[in-house]
């Protein structure tokens, strides 16, 4: 059973610690623009929504990639981008209905959450319970999967 990254809106304070650690893990710099975990803040800071890739089963990004640059890590279930194989065509960035895979002009390839190989740094950085890395059958994960299916509308 794979574990899943679960995000709980009500517990997020919008502190951005997760984004800082994520970018540090990804590019070795504390730069929220390079984070693949994103906190969206609205209503004047009243609501903070953490979001990243939910590692969909039938991942749109993976299916649409023309050069098989996105593959499944069997240990974690994460859909991982090969920077060598990615040509930078960006078609995955419009195919993902969550906006969770994005192009990085500095590297010329797309980036997304890879669960840090099974030890997500964002979860370690989170000072509240907003981010957790737990067994896939937890309620929060089911809820996310459902909304993923809804958003997709594509049942195949």
């Amino acid at each position: 059973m794979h574990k899943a990254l679960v995000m709980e809106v009500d517990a997020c304070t919008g502190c951005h610690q997760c984004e800082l650690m994520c970018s540090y893990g990804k590019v070795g710099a504390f730069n929220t623009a390079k984070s693949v975990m994103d906190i969206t803040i609205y209503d004047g800071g009243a609501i903070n929504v953490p979001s990243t890739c939910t590692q969909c089963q039938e991942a749109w990004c993976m299916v649409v990639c023309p050069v098989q640059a996105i593959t499944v890590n069997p240990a974690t279930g994460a859909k991982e981008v090969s920077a060598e194989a990615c040509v930078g065509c960006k078609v995955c960035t419009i195919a993902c209905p969550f906006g969770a895979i994005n192009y990085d002009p500095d590297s010329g390839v797309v980036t997304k959450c890879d669960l840090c190989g099974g030890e997500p740094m964002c979860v370690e950085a989170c000072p509240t319970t907003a981010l957790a890395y737990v067994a896939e059958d937890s309620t929060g994960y089911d809820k996310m999967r459902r909304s993923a299916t809804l958003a997709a509308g594509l049942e195949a």
Partner: protein
Amino acid sequence: MHYVIAGAGPAAIAAAEHLRELDASAQVTLIGAQAQPPYSRMAIPYFLTGKVSEEGTYLRRSQDHYEAHGLNLIHGEVTAVDPKGRSVTLGDGQKIKYDKLLLATGAEPIIPPVSGMEDPRVQQCWHLEDAERIIELAKPGARAVQVGAGFIGCIILESWVLREVNLTVVEMGPRMVPRMLGEKAGGLLQSWCEAKGVTVHTNTQVKAIESTPDELQVVLENGETCPADVVIVSTGVKPRLHYLEGCDIDIDQGIVVDAHMQTNQPDVYAAGDCAQGLDFSTGETAVHAVQPTATEHGRIAAANMVGNNNLPYKGSLNMNILDTLGLVTCSFGAWEGVAGGDSAEMYNPDNHQYVNLQFKDDVLVGANSVGYHEHLGVLRGLIETQIPLGEWKDRLKDNPVNLVEAYQGVNQAALQNG
């Protein structure tokens, strides 16, 4: 059960792999017309710039991928289909029997009816071999004229600039990528290209290409003449269908398919750039000729071939993204708007930024953007779920750039309520 797939492009491979997933005992035969292992035309621009090798354009990375998945990939060109006899004929006369057939023969370039096209310095950019030939012709300092500024034209344009050729682009439409971008977005793309040293002619066609041993003269209908060392023709594509003459398969713009991706002939399906399938935005059928539609078509067709038409498809959302010399443009769905609809717009020509959102009531139905590359996928999410925007519609009208906030806001509201 023997499934035969005519073609070996993205729709064909997506279908073959999904057939294998759904039916472990299926016999699956793919018929590819190209000499190379199945490759992606979308990757050719990056082969032209040297970002990837030829192997980097292949649809699947491991050499034995097809064999390992029990997919029989054969080289050949389908020249005829016999739905009654349940067979296809290949160029060498060989007949292959099928139980279910998928037509995924893709598209081919449209060649404008202009004199001089046969000169070897006039090149399509469609097959890998074309790309290799262009690499020889497009030496630094060479004068290149690119005919057509559509989807493919705008992506390959960067290859010429990186190869340091002097580039002139000729587009017959009123703006660059007229089938994907509105007037303001197309205008921003044009001024961006011009600022990078590209000469852009719109609203004019090539009348003739005159050859001399030293150079080509590209004569335009607006009276101008462009001298060139190489001419690249990218004037659009059309479904590849010539092998279907006289076999009673319904053809309009492409092969007409129903919600199960089936043609008018039982057990004959079609997918990808050759198929005219349901369009999510209009409810009618259309040829999209884009990668997301091709891979979805392939998977939906495979599911229906295995499951006897048990998976109706709601249609594909047309979408496109281009990176032209570093300026990212994208389009989704009904970007031109719908009758009785409403819109929101942000136009910042100084920064080459633009967002245009199209609504029907409080549902997003289409979008264009220029100069943004982050979280664009949320546009698909908002359009395909048809989720009511509620108060977020007014917020988007105030600031169309706040898309991620709107996306999270409406989804959070939906989760709270149900």
